[in-house]
């Protein structure tokens, strides 16, 4: 039986947004500075699912510069492709990565299911907020599903806080059904609400919605008043606003449903060692977390690190309890999107 499924029945201490947790840890330690960490020495093989704008690479360069005795061997590629490689390596008994850093939780779920690594050390898990702890991998940073709305014509109060009630409104919507993030959102809705409810929601929303090639297009159409509301990850709106502060688009959040799903990038330590643990601790420092929040608008999941500018404090948001590893189960979602004519 899969370990996450064993754990999913156990307690999650936070009432707001628990997505998975270890059973024996109640509080997060405060994030620490890199200055408090030991120097990294030795050879480490990292499989790196490419991240935002090469910023992950900047972080790795900085770690290497700071730790001249670290020999970092990096294999780069799309997260999905590297996950497939790691699964194949595990099947053939030849896993070659010490650490897998992926931009999406689904890839990590696939890999830990195939390779069944040792549980994450408590000293590492302790660094994360309790609601963001998984047994065999560690979230590094998050991204929220949001409702981007045209702030020239709507106030956030006009939007229901329940994503399932959106079909009852008269708003026009924009979405990008071919986009992986949208499909993860629908997958989360399937998990939370069931197939029938999700199918009905898609059918009801389809006549009100216009499809775009990507979620930036959705947000831009919303800012141009082509659409009242758009479905998109939070950072598209924040990036657009960074360049165009007066753009009439803002973020609204539903509560405890797929509309405010928090997905995560993360790492799995596939060959446990002190070096691998210490390397991951570098990714969870205040400096790296702050860098990701500042430069990539990613959401820190540690105590003591501020959210990106323009995003409410994480503690105020209420993402749903979803096992992120289940978001890999895309085939039923694609079938549903096709059967409802959305895709």
């Amino acid at each position: 039986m899969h370990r996450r499924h064993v754990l999913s029945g156990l307690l999650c201490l936070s009432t707001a947004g628990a997505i998975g947790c270890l059973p024996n840890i109640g509080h997060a330690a405060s994030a620490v500075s890199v200055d408090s960490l030991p120097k990294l020495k030795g050879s480490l093989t990292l499989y790196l699912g490419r991240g935002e704008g090469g910023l992950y690479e900047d972080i790795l360069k900085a770690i290497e510069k700071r730790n001249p005795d670290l020999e970092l061997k990096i294999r780069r590629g799309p997260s999905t492709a590297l996950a497939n490689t790691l699964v194949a390596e595990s099947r053939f008994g030849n896993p070659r990565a010490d650490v897998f850093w992926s931009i999406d939780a689904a890839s990590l779920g696939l890999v830990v299911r195939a390779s069944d690594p040792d549980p994450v050390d408590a000293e590492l898990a302790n660094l994360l907020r309790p609601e963001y702890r998984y047994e065999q991998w560690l979230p590094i940073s998050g991204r929220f599903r949001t409702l981007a709305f045209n702030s020239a014509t709507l106030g956030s109060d006009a939007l229901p806080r329940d994503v399932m009630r959106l079909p009852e409104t008269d708003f026009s919507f924009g979405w990008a059904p071919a986009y992986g993030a949208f499909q993860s959102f629908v997958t989360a809705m399937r998990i939370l609400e069931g197939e029938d409810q999700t199918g009905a929601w898609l059918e009801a929303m389809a006549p009100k919605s216009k499809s775009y090639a990507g979620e930036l297009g959705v947000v831009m159409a919303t800012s141009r008043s082509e659409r009242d509301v758009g479905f998109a990850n939070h950072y598209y709106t924040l990036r657009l606003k960074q360049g165009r502060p007066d753009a009439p688009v803002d973020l609204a959040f539903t509560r405890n449903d797929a509309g405010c799903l928090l997905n995560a990038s993360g790492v799995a330590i596939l060959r446990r060692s002190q070096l691998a643990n210490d390397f991951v601790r570098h990714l969870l420092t205040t400096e790296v977390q702050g860098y990701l929040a500042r430069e990539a608008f990613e959401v820190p999941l540690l105590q003591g690190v501020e959210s990106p500018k323009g995003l409410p404090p994480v503690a105020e948001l209420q993402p749903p309890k979803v096992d992120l590893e289940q978001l890999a189960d895309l085939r039923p979602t694609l079938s549903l999107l096709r059967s409802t004519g959305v895709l």
Partner: protein
Amino acid sequence: MNTLSLRSIVLAAAITLLMPEPAWPHGDRDEEKLAEFQLHLDSYQEDVASMIDTVAGITNNAAATKADVDALIQQWEDVSVHEAIEDKATLAYPGVWQALIQLQQAVVAEAGVEDAGESVKAALWQGMGALRMAATMAVPTDAQSDAEGELLSGPESIAAIINDLNSAVASYVDGDAALAEKTIFDTYENRFEYLEGDLIPKDPDLVTALEADFNATLPLLFKQGADEIAVRRAVANMTTQLETAKTILEQVEAQRGDVF
């Protein structure tokens, strides 16, 4: 935004909506077989032949119903060649689904069933052909190779994308439209997508225009067998936009703060 850009985005949506992200179902995916897919081509061809027999059973039966096509779609869901095409011949994958849905609609409408059946057969054979090409392709595209190689900076990535575009044009002129299309797909997936974050705050219109060109304008020209002049004109337009992107990225990277 001008009319052409809007049209491009609509086209991009139309194309990309037919290209679902690879799915990873729990438990029913044979990773071992996929990892050695080139050893199973005969088995995949048997799957295709079996499906084509089913298609023939539908097109030759004047009383065929939607349930018969649903059974065909279920057969497609079950055969091993499905995941092989989905994973190893991604560009051919949406065409199979599109043809199946067209057949379903034709059967319901009781019109054009034979033509729709032929489209399904053609899409399946195209998928099979793309699988064979993937199995024999000894050299990956540059974009794939770099995925495992050294990191390129943003401006270096733009230079590599322009090289990929020129390489795609050369392939197209040589008569290999499939390789040209794959090169464009790879360079978008493996290079451009990772630059978007830095470009959006500076010029979001540029990003959406380039997304449309990568996903719709250029692939459509290849599919339609457009003349070389039209293809070169489209690439020249993209190159101009990419040069603008390069300038932006140089500025962004120069201003970026330190990690530690």
